[in-house]
Each structure stands twice: as structure tokens, then as C-alpha cells.
């Protein structure tokens, strides 16, 4: 009975140097990531110490007055809530549309249309986020305001959709819809890739049993792609959480808790940083760095979960 022999690789000196250099190069991403977290935390530490838990739960972001009569107080609570609200609106809108888009490209379009749509999808994923801001304010907002108005007049009794000022532009709702358009390419292309890996023979056996196209999709494709789509959705969510300029241009930035998504006030952490950065005192700058640290942790967590989900699915099935 032949035994499996133990493999023993001896690298030459040249190889060992080569492998060291390559490893060092590959480790830069890890080091950079660690440094980002470390520096933002270290520079923001003073704020964390001064504000304590109120940094997350408080309600105010004021630099205080010059003569020291009013104390500086920094809390990202409202902005954190705003970040989450806007991102979830984006995700809720973008996810079904992206799934429909991915299914359409993969199962409903002809070869030529499919190629065209995939190119369009790649290009859409590369649209700079500032364009979404421009487009959201100048092109899309009139339409979105009409939708907001309709939503408010028919669903206004529900607190989420109430709006006492009856001004509908520049609201978290509009910003969320624009972010939905922004993250849809990511979710669509990841979903499409996952769906395209569905084993052909499973789909074909569905047809062979007399199933319709929808039958095959529902019975085979959707369950097969579920976790991959979930990962894609989380990657999209991560991008929406950290978006700056599109939100900055569209939202009317107000530093207060606002749960009425149709009202023209809101904000997110990233746009807080961009807004306050220019006129910040040294102390407030530390506050912004602390806010950046929280944002970094938030997006990194979401992204790591998303990555592990996506990588697990692609390893299992390919």
C-alpha cells in the first residue's frame, strides 16, 4: 500500500528574500487599515474621555463660545441616527430593484442585451458619487418631492411620514432614494454574479419538469443566491453608510434627531465631518476625528461581515 509522501519544500535564499518582500508588500493593506483605526482613535481619544458615553447618546454638537461661557459639547447621536435612517431607506429601495435587475440581466435578456447591460452596470458602478449629488438636487428632486407629497398626504397619519412644515425637498427620504440609485449597481452586479453561478443543470431540470421560468427562479436560483445577495446588500449598505458628498449636497443638514423622513432636515456622520471641517477649532477637530473613528468602525464591521458572507459563498460553489 503506497503511502502519501511528506512534501518538504526548501526555499533557496533568493526565494526567501522574494517571499519576504512580497509578504511585506501584501501586508501594507493590513497595516494601513490598522493605522487608520489607531490614529483616528488616538487623536479622538480626548473627546471620548471628555464626553464619555454621551458622545453617542447626546443631542448637541456645539463648539462652545470663544470666552468659554458656553462649554463645547460634541455628540454624534443625531448624525448616527441620520446615517442609519438614510442608509436603510437606500437599502430597502435598492435591494428589490437590484434583485430584479440581476434576474433580468441573467435570465430574461438576450445575449446581446445582456452584454450591453453588464457594460452599463460596470460603468454605473464607477459613476463618481458627486454626480449623484448633482443629479439628485437638479434633476431628481422635483420628482421625489412629488412622491414625498403623495406619501405625506395619504400616509401622513403615520409618524414616519408626517411633515408639519410641508416642505418636501432635501429630506432624508430624497437622500435615501439617491443613495439607493448609487448602491444599486454594486448590489446588482454582485447578485448577478452569484445568480450566474447557479448550476445550469438544476435550472434545466426545472424546465424539464415542466416548470416555468419563474418556477425555476423561485425554486433554484433565489435560494442558491440568497447568501451572496445578502453579502452584496451589506456591501451596498457599507457604501451608503460612508457616503459624503451626495448626502452633503442633497440633505438640509440639521443637527437634531429627526425621525420624520419627509422633513427637510437630517444629516449623516460623513457630511457632518465635511461641513464642520473647514471652520473647526483644534478641539472640535478632535471631535470630528472621533466621529470619523465611529464611522470607520461602523463601516468596517458591516464590510467585514459582508466580505465573509460573499467569500464563503464564492468558495463553496466555485
Amino acid at each position: 500500500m503506497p503511502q502519501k509522501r511528506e512534501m518538504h519544500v526548501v526555499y533557496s535564499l533568493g526565494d526567501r528574500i522574494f517571499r519576504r518582500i512580497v509578504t511585506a508588500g501584501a501586508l501594507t493593506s493590513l497595516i494601513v487599515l490598522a493605522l487608520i483605526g489607531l490614529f483616528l482613535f488616538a487623536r479622538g481619544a480626548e473627546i471620548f474621555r471628555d464626553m464619555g458615553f454621551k458622545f453617542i447618546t447626546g443631542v448637541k454638537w456645539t463648539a462652545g463660545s470663544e470666552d468659554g461661557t458656553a462649554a463645547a459639547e460634541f455628540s454624534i447621536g443625531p448624525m448616527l441616527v441620520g446615517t442609519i435612517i438614510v442608509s436603510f431607506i437606500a437599502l430597502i429601495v435598492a435591494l428589490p430593484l437590484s434583485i430584479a435587475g440581476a434576474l433580468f440581466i441573467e435570465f430574461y435578456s438576450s445575449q446581446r442585451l445582456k452584454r450591453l447591460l453588464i457594460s452599463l452596470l460596470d460603468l454605473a458602478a464607477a459613476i463618481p458619487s458627486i454626480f449623484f449629488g448633482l443629479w439628485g438636487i437638479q434633476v431628481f428632486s422635483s420628482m421625489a418631492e412629488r412622491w414625498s407629497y403623495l406619501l405625506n398626504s395619504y400616509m401622513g397619519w403615520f409618524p414616519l411620514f408626517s411633515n408639519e412644515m410641508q416642505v418636501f425637498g432635501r429630506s432624508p427620504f430624497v437622500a435615501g432614494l439617491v443613495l439607493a440609485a448609487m448602491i444599486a449597481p454594486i448590489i446588482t452586479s454582485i447578485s448577478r454574479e452569484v445568480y450566474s453561478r447557479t448550476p445550469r443543470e438544476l435550472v434545466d431540470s426545472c424546465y424539464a419538469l415542466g416548470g416555468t421560468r419563474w418556477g425555476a427562479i423561485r425554486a433554484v436560483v433565489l435560494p442558491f443566491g440568497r447568501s451572496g445577495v445578502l453579502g452584496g446588500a451589506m456591501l451596498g449598505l457599507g457604501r451608503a453608510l460612508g457616503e459624503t458628498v451626495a448626502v452633503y449636497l442633497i440633505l438640509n443638514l440639521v443637527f437634531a434627531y429627526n425621525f420624520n423622513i419627509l422633513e427637510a432636515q437630517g444629516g449623516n456622520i460623513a457630511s457632518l465631518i465635511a461641513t464642520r471641517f473647514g471652520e473647526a477649532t483644534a478641539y472640535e477637530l478632535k471631535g470630528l476625528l472621533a466621529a470619523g473613528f465611529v464611522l470607520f468602525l461602523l463601516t468596517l464591521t458591516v464590510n467585514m461581515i459582508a466580505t465573509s458572507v460573499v467569500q464563503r459563498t464564492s468558495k463553496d460553489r466555485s
Partner: protein
Amino acid sequence: MSNIGNETLVAPIQPWVKPRAKTLKNLFGPALVALVSFVIVLLTGFAGPDGWALLFFVGLLGLAIARTRNQDRVKRNNSLISIVIAGGATLAFAPWLSIFYSLVIKGFHGIYLGYFFRDMRITTPDDELNMGGVGHAIIGSAIMVLIATAITLPLGILSGVYLTEVRGRLTRMIRFVIQSMSGVPSIVAGLFIFTTFVDVTKQFSGLAGSLALSILMLPTVARTAEEVLKLVPEDLRAASYALGARQWRSSLMVVLPTVRSGLTTAAILGVARVIGETAPLILTAQSISSFKFNPFSGQIASIPMYIFALFQIGTEYSMARAWSGALVLMVIVFLLFVVARRLGNRVKR
């Protein structure tokens, strides 16, 4: 087999190809629905393209129900859901098409030959559109992106080589870290460079901008490099080892030269990823309105910051300039994609 004998070939029956007459007949219903919805939009309170789209969609669903009235539930569901999926896909694609369309429509006014060569030093944002230009911003963006590429490309290639050639103990972790790093918000990258570089050198600079862009660019370059290196056939490596080459020789002299154009693609995709980034530049490079070629001291212009600054002024002409700048940026991104695609195709062949 067609050249056996001289018998004329009978055209094979293709039951899956619909005759043209039938296709036309199938299109008649939707066309009618489209027309009826259009009339309703004209006459009633349903306004705008969104109202029309909604009516058209509901009309199509109605039509499908009418057509499948004699069929069973499964088939009816199938055709209804086809329409829902096509509708959802249209809705998903509509914003991007709308963006491309508005870029062209709103952007082309401000573009003339001098637009690419002039700066905004003596032109106020409110001047007529035949003055001033985006030249300084193009130069600034090009400088920053080039530096960022010079930093990222070697690191990206090393990461790719580690993941595909060296395959050390950390392979899985590094792949994971690179993927997670692609989710770092651009403003956080800007903040990081601000506290570690701008704050230390006491000035905004193009170099700081490049460093911030590098952080965002590295994951894209590394992942694309890994993808193209994976395409190298294992035979090539085996052949090189069989000739007695060490790993470093076979990696540097066989594997990497094979994918040279693929690595160029990686660099180009990285550039396309970061050239439109605005948020990190607010914190690192800022913007100025004149030409500047020195990235090592002081603020420098860039296309996204040019758009951002003009858009915030908010007057008619400054908006028009912002849209023109956006059109230029989109064309650049588009061209980068076309080049990347060409090179990518060459790799596969």
C-alpha cells in the same frame, strides 16, 4: 454534412423562433397601453414621466392578465412576474441613464475648445460660458492620480503575487483585509491623511491628496491584479519550475510579464475608481482656481473639487460650469473603461 450530393437543403424548422408577424402582434398590445397611458397623463392629474411609467406598468399587468385568462395559475404568475422583474430592472437602470443623459444635456453648453486649456484665475464663476475652463483641474487630477498610481500599483501587484504565487499562511486573511478595505469610506481616508500628513506638514498639498486616493485605490488594484494573475495557466509555472527556475525567477520573469496588459488594466480600473472622489480631497488637497504643477506644497485643483466648489456657489453659470466639469469627468472615466476593456480582452485571448 451539407455538401453531400446536390440535394437542396430544406430550411430546418425552428419552433423556438417566433415569426415576425407574431412578434409585431405581440408588440401591438403594449404599444396601445403606452398610448392610452400617455393620453391619461395628458388629461388627468397623473403627471410626468413617473406617472406615465406607473400607468404603463399597471396597464401591462392588466394586459397580461387578459392574455393569460385561459391559462392556469402557474403560467399566469409566470407572465405577471416577468413584467414585474422587467419593470424593476428598468427602474434600477433608469437613474443611471438619467444621469448620463443630464450630463450631456446640461454639460455640453459650457464646453468649447478653450475649456480644456484655461483655468478660472481671471474668470469668476458667473462669467459667460465662453471664458475660463477646467484645464487646471484636469492637470491637478492627473498629477494626483499619477502619484497615487505610482504608490498603489507596486503594492497592488505585490498583494496579487502574494495571493496567487507565494500563497503564504496569511493568504486568506490578506484577501479578507483587502476586500474589507475597499469599504473604507472616502472621508475616513481623507481624515486619516489629514491627521497624519496635512497636520504634520502644516499645509494642504497634492501629495496629501494622492496619499488619500491611494488608500481608496489599493483594494481595487490588488483585487484586479489577483484576478488577472489567477488567469495565468498553471502549466506556465510548472514549465518554468521544470526548467530549474526558482520561484522568484518564475514569478518575475514568466508570470508577471505574461499578464503585463492585465496589470495595466488593474491600474486603469484603480484610476477610474478614484478619479471622481471628492470627499478625501476636501480634507487634503482642497482646491485653487489656477494652474499648478507642484504637488508638494499648497492646495491644488482637481476635477471633482472644481465641480463641488462651483456647484456650491449655485448661480446659473456656475451650475452650468459644474455640469460641464462633470461631463468631462464622466468622459474620462468612460474612456478609461473602454481602454481597460480592450486590454482585458487581450488578456483573455
